[in-house]
């Protein structure tokens, strides 16, 4: 990850594990934007993302002794963030009765499918961002963690509290929905999932 020079981070982690609070604060400074970005992608809401970031760093601080350094600190933070986001969204759903139905309809925010625009990579990226925000949280979490952050299926399943096969099924559904939205078929081409 570009913002995290491996050696510096490793040194900071070692110092923080030895009880150096300033080192942990520095780790937060270096990684907080990435952590926030992931939290926002998982929750789709600024306020929720802030709460998730707060909780994630508290958990990281308390559990730092258990971090064995086999993965990068950033990857470890991604896992904690994913877990916090899943807990947060679960709690929010129970409180607000949000619709977490996987079969929720993805809203097509770009009904005009200009071939020239589609060919443009920047346009595709911005449409992908919109499409991701439109995905149900359960599907979005899996596809973001796998396809953007490259976490292994096992880690995703573990942090989201689901089985590995369920994680794969959600991943494929999410990709299918994203593909349908980014590359819509012409009339008569639609295929049932």
């Amino acid at each position, binding site marked *: 990850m570009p913002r995290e020079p491996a050696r510096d981070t490793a040194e900071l982690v070692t110092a923080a594990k030895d009880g150096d609070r300033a080192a942990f604060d520095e780790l937060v400074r270096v990684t907080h934007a990435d952590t926030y970005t992931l939290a926002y992608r998982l929750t789709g809401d600024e306020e929720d993302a802030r709460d998730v970031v707060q909780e994630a760093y508290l958990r990281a601080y308390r559990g730092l002794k258990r971090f064995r350094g086999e993965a990068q600190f950033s990857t470890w933070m991604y896992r904690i963030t994913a877990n916090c986001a899943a807990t947060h969204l679960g709690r929010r759903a129970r409180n607000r009765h949000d619709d977490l139905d996987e079969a929720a309809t993805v809203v097509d925010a770009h009904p005009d499918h200009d071939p020239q625009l589609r060919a443009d990579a920047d346009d595709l990226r911005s449409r992908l*961002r919109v499409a991701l925000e439109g995905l149900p949280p359960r599907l979005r979490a899996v596809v973001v963690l796998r396809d953007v952050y490259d976490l292994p299926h096992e880690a995703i399943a573990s942090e989201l509290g689901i089985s590995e096969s369920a994680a794969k099924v959600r991943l494929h559904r999410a990709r299918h929905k994203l593909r349908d939205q980014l590359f819509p078929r012409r009339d008569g081409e639609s295929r049932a999932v």
Partner: protein
Amino acid sequence: MQCEDMTEALAATAEGDAHLSRSQRRHVERCLRCQAEVVQYRKLLRTMRTLRTDVLEPAPGLLADVLANLEEAGERHAIRSMLSGRRIAYLGGLAAATAAGAAGAIVYASRTRRTRLAG
């Protein structure tokens, strides 16, 4: 093999880690629609990967809030450690006093017994 049977497998081919069966592979080789889907999935994955470097700027104040929260948690932890340290010292003292009392009682009892036997 129909295109409809390929949905799950094609979504997995984005990573290139999907193991298509021989019949699925044969179908894709012949089906332009499924080939187009494979291309779309790969394009989707490439675009997803580019989002990794796309870092959002958190609202000002988030960093300060996180650090303040950690500071507070650190203080709470320190206070808890101090209190639990004191509690351990108190319980240790109590245990030592109880042991000393019990030992004293035993010594006293055995002396009294010896005196009675001597008398």
